[in-house]
């Protein structure tokens, strides 16, 4: 759970965009294919995928392998078997409805004209076969028809099924308020359990309804009975009002649905489900693809006292082990990581500074695992002036019988500027080597001071005088 919340806080804007974009793609696929058998097949694939994921989490190797195989094969099968539905969706929609609109497949069909015509033909035992396509394209399912492209009217429809009309044996396709074609030949159903009263016209109507989501109205020529076929279902229609009701339901003009059945609620719910599924998928992928990486990052020291300067640090780089989604880690470069140590509370001398998560700025979605070293020693110092005594540095030997009784530098003290820590360890400034071998009498000589640490500087010149007193050894 903690990891989940961490993942939420570590979301980048790219991750949010990723989730929203793919949710919308899934939602569009649902919108475009809803009501078709492709959606049902895709649902099956999703169930297989979920089963595969469950198998992975349970460690069922063979089951997972089998599920992956089924999904792979199913994807190919879906494309092959449902190529007509897919092509009809891809080819018949304009770009706007493909990317944005919520297509309403229902057309404003004048159902009363159809119902009136059907129940005008039925008593007269004039056979009729009327197709009302829904969302699926039926072009590939029917053949041999004659294009009519005429406005629907009772007279025209009646005349088509009139016994003397050459087109009367075929089916009429009505889309919206227009008769698209007539004389269409339909695929026949191969069902064996049909009533004996059903003839070829019924078998054709049932055949098309089995393969598509179209509604087919059949008027029996022998009995004058009106039969309605939709999605393998057979309804005998006894009244004009009943037919109108069925037609309105098919056309989407039925009584307004409430609650979850309301179209807008269904679309909203579908969008929410798509978002939920893609979000879950995203987290599943990002967690499943978690990887580790190691980066060596230079440490940046911030907010030091202006009077202080950093003399030394135990390390200038730290090694960070980070984790996160593999694709994300692949994009992480050392420049994207900052390690900043706050020295506002540091004092002169050696400070031990702990390196915590607060000191490390990582890109969103990346998690810190370990830091090596976990702490740094930082030595700070300030520039100070110190007054130091001067001592002559004699070398060689005085001639025999002589001793140097006294020696003093002029001036005896000098001011030296340098870091406090260094100057704390220095108590004397020495002259350069002063050879004794040629000194026989007391006197004074000029020499230079030597500062062993190059960071130190003398506030006055390096030249000084040394006054010395040489005497003969008694006895």
């Amino acid at each position: 759970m903690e990891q989940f919340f961490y993942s939420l806080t570590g979301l980048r804007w790219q991750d949010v965009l990723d989730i929203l974009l793919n949710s919308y793609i899934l939602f569009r696929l649902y919108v475009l294919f809803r009501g078709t058998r492709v959606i049902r097949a895709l649902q099956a694939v999703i169930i297989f995928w979920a089963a595969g994921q469950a198998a992975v989490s349970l460690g069922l190797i063979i089951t997972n392998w089998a599920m992956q195989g089924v999904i792979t094969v199913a994807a190919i099968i879906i494309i092959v078997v449902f190529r007509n539905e897919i092509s009809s969706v891809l080819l018949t929609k304009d770009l706007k409805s493909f990317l944005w609109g919520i297509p309403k497949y229902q057309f404003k069909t004048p159902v009363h004209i159809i119902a009136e015509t059907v129940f005008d033909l039925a008593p007269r035992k004039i056979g009729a076969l009327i197709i009302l396509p829904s969302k699926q394209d039926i072009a590939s399912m029917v053949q041999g028809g004659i294009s009519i492209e005429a406005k629907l009217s009772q007279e025209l429809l009646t005349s088509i099924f009139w016994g003397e009309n050459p087109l009367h044996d075929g089916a009429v396709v009505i889309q919206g308020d227009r008769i698209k074609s007539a004389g269409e030949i339909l695929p026949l159903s191969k069902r064996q359990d049909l009533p004996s009263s059903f003839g070829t016209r019924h078998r054709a109507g049932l055949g098309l309804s089995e393969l598509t989501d179209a509604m087919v109205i059949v008027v029996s020529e022998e009995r004058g009975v009106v039969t309605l076929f939709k999605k393998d279902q057979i309804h005998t229609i006894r009244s004009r009002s009943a037919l109108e009701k069925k037609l309105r339901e098919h056309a989407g003009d039925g009584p307004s649905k409430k609650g979850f059945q309301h179209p807008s609620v269904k679309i909203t719910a579908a969008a929410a489900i798509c978002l939920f599924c893609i979000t879950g998928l995203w987290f599943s992928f990002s967690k499943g693809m978690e990887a580790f990486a190691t980066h060596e990052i230079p440490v940046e020291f911030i907010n030091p006292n202006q009077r202080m300067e950093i003399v030394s640090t135990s390390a200038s780089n730290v090694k960070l082990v980070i984790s996160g989604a593999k694709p994300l880690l692949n994009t992480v470069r050392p420049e994207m990581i900052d390690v900043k140590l706050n020295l506002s509370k540091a004092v002169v001398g050696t400070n031990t500074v702990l390196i915590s998560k607060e000191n490390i700025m990582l890109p969103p979605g990346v998690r810190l695992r370990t830091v090596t070293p976990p702490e740094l020693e930082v030595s700070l110092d300030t520039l100070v002036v110190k007054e130091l005594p001067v001592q002559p540095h004699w070398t060689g030997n005085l001639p025999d019988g002589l001793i140097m009784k006294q020696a003093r530098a002029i001036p005896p003290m000098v001011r030296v500027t340098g870091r406090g820590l260094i100057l704390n360890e220095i108590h004397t400034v020495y002259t350069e080597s002063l050879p004794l071998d040629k000194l026989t009498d007391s006197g004074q000589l000029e020499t230079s001071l030597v500062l062993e640490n190059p960071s130190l500087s003398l506030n006055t010149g390096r030249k000084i005088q040394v006054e010395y007193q040489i005497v003969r050894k008694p006895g």
Partner: protein
Amino acid sequence: MKKILSGKLPIGLTTFLILILTASPPARSEETQQKTVLVRAEMCEAIENYKPVNPAVVFSIALGEVYCFTSFDPVVEKTVIFHKWYKRDRLIFTMRLTLSPPKWSSFSRIQIRDADKGPWRVEIWDENGSLFETLRFSMTD
């Protein structure tokens, strides 16, 4: 009355403490107001008859040893002092010496070798961490 104390250090240093009583103890009221005073401090080649021989600021390593002689007058109460020997700024050793009233002389000694050439100093400290004096000298060829 004369007392001589001696001891031996691991590094070969021998210390002699010389007590020379030349005056009777001062009155009690004066004693509380007086301080122990360093009256003489010298580097020298030897100690003879409790006095420094050939005090100097340059010593040849051929001598083999160098002495730091200190004399205190008065010594108010029994106390200790320290002779801290430095080669450049590196402390080589510290000698703890005891002083007793009414006055006292003491010295510390170091044996010198070829590697000891260079500038040296001896700091003379009391037990409270106050510096009496610094003696500076060089060890040469």
